[in-house]
């Protein structure tokens, strides 16, 4: 067996030759060969799934580029550049697909998506990374063994329940405390979203922190640093690439999350940098409008176009994050 096999548990490639006389030998060999091919064939399902997802979402989006009928309502140019929607009006960005003059500016949605995602990261990253540092450096084993399942449990709560919580409890609490004009806004949605990405950021960060070589800690302690100083100035910087990967993965997750934002953001496509006004994100737009569009129409195609964008962008972010995590694991040589 070649030494490069990392998992090295698979069954030896060539079974030893057997006497031809053993009963049913040919039949058993045939079954074995057939099973092997069937298993390999079924294993293509995952590849097929990813390919089909992109193909069929992109296929429905294609008319945005090619169909003359769709172009009467919307073109790429009209989605990207500011438009004067009325004769003589100042050009502006506006998303109003259902109106006499359908308006399809992507800017409010893109800005809204990034705004909510950033707010989620601002809340989630410090808490999740600090908690990971606590779990990796300070927590007694028993505390760690409670903390990790608790965070897994948080990850297991359906997003519609978190959205419901943000809508019913957080929104009211925030409005009473800070006096927001809009009850549902980017901050409420962002905090709700933070709840879904805390587990991702925590898990990957904790992984990165625990794989920092022990020698680093020992060297720092031997030089007279306290455990706190070691954790903050040695372990945390050494784990930076992994924590960066955690943030990137959290970003990808937050951007694609639908139900929380759909329920708690107010869903008004307002182009603004103010975090206290309502926003509409790309996933929430798809979820809210998909039910009422004409199959194959301009609006339908634009929603699938948004879906394709979302697919590609999250693919890039997950790819980046995964590449970092993979490199980290290889460097340390651990398995997981």
């Amino acid at each position: 067996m070649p030494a490069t096999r990392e998992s090295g548990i698979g069954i030896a490639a060539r079974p030893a030759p057997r006497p031809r006389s053993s009963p049913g030998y040919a039949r058993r060999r045939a079954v074995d060969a057939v099973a092997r091919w069937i298993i390999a064939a079924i294993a293509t399902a995952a590849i097929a799934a990813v390919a089909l997802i992109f193909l069929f979402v992109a296929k429905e989006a294609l008319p945005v580029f090619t169909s003359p009928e769709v172009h009467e309502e919307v073109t790429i140019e009209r989605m990207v550049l500011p438009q004067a929607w009325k004769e003589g009006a100042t050009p502006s960005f506006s998303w109003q697909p259902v109106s006499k003059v359908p308006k399809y500016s992507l800017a409010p949605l893109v800005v809204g998506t990034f705004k909510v995602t950033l707010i989620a990261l601002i809340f989630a990253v410090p808490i999740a990374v600090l908690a990971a540092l606590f779990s990796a450096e300070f927590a007694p084993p028993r505390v760690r063994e409670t903390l990790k399942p608790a965070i897994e449990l948080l990850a297991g709560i359906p997003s519609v329940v978190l959205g419901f919580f943000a809508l019913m409890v957080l929104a009211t609490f925030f409005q009473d405390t800070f006096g927001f004009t809009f009850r549902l806004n980017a901050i409420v949605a962002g905090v709700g979203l933070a709840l879904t990405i805390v587990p991702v950021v925590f898990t990957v960060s904790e992984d990165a922190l625990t794989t920092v070589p022990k020698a680093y800690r020992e060297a720092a302690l031997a030089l007279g640093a306290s455990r706190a100083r070691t954790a903050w100035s040695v372990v945390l910087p050494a784990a930076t690439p992994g924590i960066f990967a955690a943030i990137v993965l959290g970003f990808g997750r937050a951007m694609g999350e639908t139900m929380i934002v759909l329920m708690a953001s107010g869903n008004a496509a307002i182009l603004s940098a103010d975090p206290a006004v309502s926003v509409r994100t790309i996933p929430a737009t798809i979820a809210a409008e998909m039910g009422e569009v004409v199959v194959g129409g301009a609006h339908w195609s634009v929603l699938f176009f948004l879906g394709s964008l979302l697919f590609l962008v999250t693919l890039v972010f997950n790819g980046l994050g995964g590449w970092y995590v993979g490199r980290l694991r290889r460097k340390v040589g651990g398995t997981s």
Partner: protein
Amino acid sequence: MTRLTPHQRANFAFGAFSGSAALVIVAVLAFIVWDVLSLGLPQMSWEFVSAPPRDGMTAGGIFPAIFGTVLLVLIMTAAVIPVGVVTAVFLFEYARPDAFFARAVRSAVYNLAGVPSIVFGLFGVGFFIQFVGGNLDRLFSDGRVVWGQPAILWAALTLAVLTLPVVIVATEEALRAVPREHREAALALGSTRFEALWRVVLPQAVPGILTGAILAVARGAGETAPILFTGAAYFLPHLPTSGHDQFMHLGYHVYVLATQSPDIEATKPILYGTVLVLLLVTVILNLVAIGLRSRLRKRRS
């Protein structure tokens, strides 16, 4: 009391600081569970889980939504387990980890896990409803729309694609826990690779595969975005009886009750009750899976 050294003080302060971050996470989790429990529990009754809704969703129960969710998840499980288990068997037992095809499968599984759930919804519409359903109708029902519309089968298959990575990852872990010697012993006794797999390896991996199935069910039961337009309905007078019927669903019920109710105060008790049922289902399933897995890991080491 002895005075603390500067080191001890720094350690204590920083430990408490980072520990408070962990505490915040646990506290928020506890608060969500407490809020839903305290407002949802008074709603629980036999009628609530066994009767259909009445009076414009302000009274009665949520039985159709429970039924729809369970049926949905059962169809999903039937579809995802065989494919997921076989894929994991291929990756772990047959493929060389550095072979191109195995790496392609692995990367596809990884990317599949990162696709936003709303994109799965679009995929369900574009592929299952429009393409598969539409073509079935063209071939078998003379253009009448039977399969080319939102239906429980399409929603379940969409969820099956979404939960595929969960099953694959859990099965691989289960296979990794089967000692290598067992495979070698089976082969040394003259079994073929498939016989060793079928009679020796897989039976030992069953608890781990079960863990994966439970995690997939917990995930599938809670996902709402992919079923928004692939088959869920807010209210149906009948339970789904065939694969091309629409269905009611706990998550979708929560979404509509919370966002589109004309009188939120009147529907609030039902809403909290529904959230409690959904939360209980997913939390209990997750706890079972976490417990099962940690027991398996302990046994292994």
